[in-house]
């Protein structure tokens, strides 16, 4: 068997509240980027975001949480996605096998921290939210909601976080440390990140245009997605349906700058190279690349150059960024795009890179701009983050 089996998926994003809804949006060009509604910010009329159009109250009632709950928005969307994934995998007894949960986050429960920061000392009823700030809080809440008692951890490597949680989950199964791991990530929109990216001047005031010569930056988004990885023993024993497999993974550090990617995309190149080594696949075997493609001038140039290095500048496979649909969902992005990669394999489609008009002048790379049907055996998905963190995952047909 090549790689680790994926047996379940769950997702909530700006383009849908389930795997099915997300897929329909992707093939029908229904984008989720719009004006912000749930957060009051002075940038509301300038920025566009991939927002889940549900209020916290709606999420609370959907999850049937008690009135005294202290869930951050991040924890709520994370729990929704994780529950879907577990159900999709047909898991009824969560602790039956050695089961772990590896989550990913950028700023934890910052959405609550920033909302109540100065009120904590005046309003005792808010004090319960202080612990939400902790990076591990989301995973703790999900574990509790799932009744999962075993290994629980969280990775935070900025915008590559969820790729690394998927990578760790696959390694934990490969080495026989766990039988089953729920992997993914969650990030809700927050003023903290909106203003952070704003000060870095990489937010677009328009719809993001990945790999376009006139790209102006990214749109932030919020989302959560989780996948269930299971050992081949469980798959065999329970005669499980395998959706696809995690066949390759690689992580490297660009070691260039805290927030910018190197000109030649060293980190990205090394991450892809390692993923090919782990999978035993050749670059020519990849049918679709789901690029990181944030639409910042820096990322797309660096990533494009790294891809060209892998392919020696020729026969680069069909590629697209799905961030025009969802916005850049930070620590969750790689989990969202893992779900999309699996759906591409299951349905044999390449998603369009929306909003693309003009090829970048630095190289000869044109993304796929319309929905394309073709056989998909292997998908490569890139995710890069601040701190030079570069990760690549390869998904394969089972």
């Amino acid at each position, binding site marked *: 068997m090549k790689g680790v089996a994926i047996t379940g998926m769950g997702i909530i994003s700006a383009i849908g509240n389930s795997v099915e809804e997300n897929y329909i949006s992707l093939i029908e060009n229904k984008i989720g980027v719009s004006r912000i509604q749930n957060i009051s910010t002075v940038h509301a009329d300038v920025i566009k975001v991939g927002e889940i159009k549900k209020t916290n109250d709606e999420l609370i009632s959907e999850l049937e949480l008690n009135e005294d709950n202290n869930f951050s928005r991040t924890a709520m969307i994370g729990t929704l996605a994780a529950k879907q994934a577990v159900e999709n995998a047909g898991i009824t007894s969560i602790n039956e096998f050695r089961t772990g949960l590896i989550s990913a986050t950028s700023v934890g429960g910052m959405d609550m921290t920033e909302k109540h920061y100065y009120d904590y000392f005046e309003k005792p009823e808010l004090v319960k939210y202080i612990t939400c700030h*902790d990076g*591990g809080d989301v995973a703790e809440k999900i574990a509790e909601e799932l009744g999962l008692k075993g290994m629980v951890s969280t990775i935070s490597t900025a915008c590559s976080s969820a790729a690394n949680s998927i990578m760790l989950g696959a390694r934990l199964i490969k080495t026989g440390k766990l039988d089953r791991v729920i992997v993914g990530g969650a990030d809700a929109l927050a003023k903290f990140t909106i203003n952070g990216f704003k000060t870095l001047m990489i937010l677009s005031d328009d719809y993001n245009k990945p790999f376009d010569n006139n790209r102006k930056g990214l749109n932030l988004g919020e989302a959560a997605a989780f996948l269930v990885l299971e050992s081949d023993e469980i798959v065999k024993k329970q005669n499980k349906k395998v959706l696809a497999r995690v066949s390759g993974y690689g992580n490297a550090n660009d070691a260039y700058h805290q927030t910018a990617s190197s000109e030649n995309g060293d980190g990205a190149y090394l991450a892809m190279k390692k993923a090919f080594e782990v999978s035993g696949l050749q670059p020519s075997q990849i049918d679709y690349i789901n690029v990181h493609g944030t639409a910042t001038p820096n990322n797309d140039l660096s990533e494009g150059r790294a891809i060209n290095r892998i392919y020696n500048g020729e026969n680069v496979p069909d590629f697209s960024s799905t961030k025009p649909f969802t916005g850049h969902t930070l620590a969750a992005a790689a989990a969202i795009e893992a779900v999309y990669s699996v759906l591409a394999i299951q349905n044999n489609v390449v998603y369009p890179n929306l909003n693309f008009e003009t090829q970048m002048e630095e190289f000869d790379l044109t993304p796929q701009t319309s929905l394309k049907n073709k056989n998909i055996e292997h998908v490569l998905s890139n995710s890069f983050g601040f701190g030079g963190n570069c990760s690549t995952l390869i998904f394969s047909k089972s």
Partner: protein
Amino acid sequence: MTKKTYINGVGCISTQKTFDTVFLEEARVNHDENVLAIVTPAYKEYISPAASRRMAKGVKNGIVASALAMKDANTENVDAIITGTGLGCIEDSEKFLKSILDNKEEFLTPTSFIQSTHNTVGAQIALLQQCKGYNFTYVNGAVSFESALIDAKMQIEEDEANSILVGGVDENGDYTTALFKLNGRIKQDNQAPYDVLTSKTSGAVYGEGASFFVLENERKENTYAELLDVYIINTLEENEVESALKSFLKSNNVEVSDIDAVVLGFDGNADFENYYKNLAENTFAQTPVLYYKHLSGEYDTASAFAFWMASKVLKTQGIPEIVKVNKVSKPAYKTILLYNQLNGKNHSFTLLSK
């Protein structure tokens, strides 16, 4: 055969003088304060003043601790850098959040945002060393450091890396410590003198620090110990700890009687001390029991301080009086077990041998 993991270098910046010393001979217990600050190393020996000005103390401490560990291991390059941190760069997070709120989202500069991400420490070390290898940061409360250890051990076992820098780092932020006093995580201001073992109150005395280690696949002359195993589990009831611990030992072919010292995470939080007390008074009544949070303070990666302490015990073959819970001693220290938890969650068992 799977490769074994050895601790070949250590570096520790803590609320005690744990650099330029042998082993806690200058340590003292602070009974007066509920938030302890680190003993500051000479940053300028490791970081240029220009770079130092921009860096938060957690980043600086991480850089110094990692440099100490590399020097101690006589290693100039590592293949991977794996960091654990509970709250990450909380000072810069506070700074950026405050300026957002105080200035109504205007007039902001990116510096503190850039440095606020949890992986800043690991990234800055990679940048300084030009290490392009594997680089992960774990952020899961009290098991952040142990998650990093598990990852590192897996890398060495699978032959993915020969030499890895692993560490735990956390820093105190003023506003966050005020919030932790408000929600009871930190003991109240007026309860001094603070004492960990006799405490009747909830909450803990807080601390901060950075401990880094060079883990390698080869035993060397300067090896401190072999890392036999690390296990984390999210939820255990008080009465489940002993059996979980025994099955962990059993999976490593070790009996309770083989343990020459056990290091427990007593932090003076009366609500959860039974998790440790039961072990100290029953399972390990005939074993030297050690504690450390009266020296290091409590924080998410305080268990990295314990890892440093256990490494030192194995190397020096002696236990400083100041960390002893009971009067039991052994002629030699070969196998040490560490156990930690926080508020009944995030339990970890770590097993080291000479």
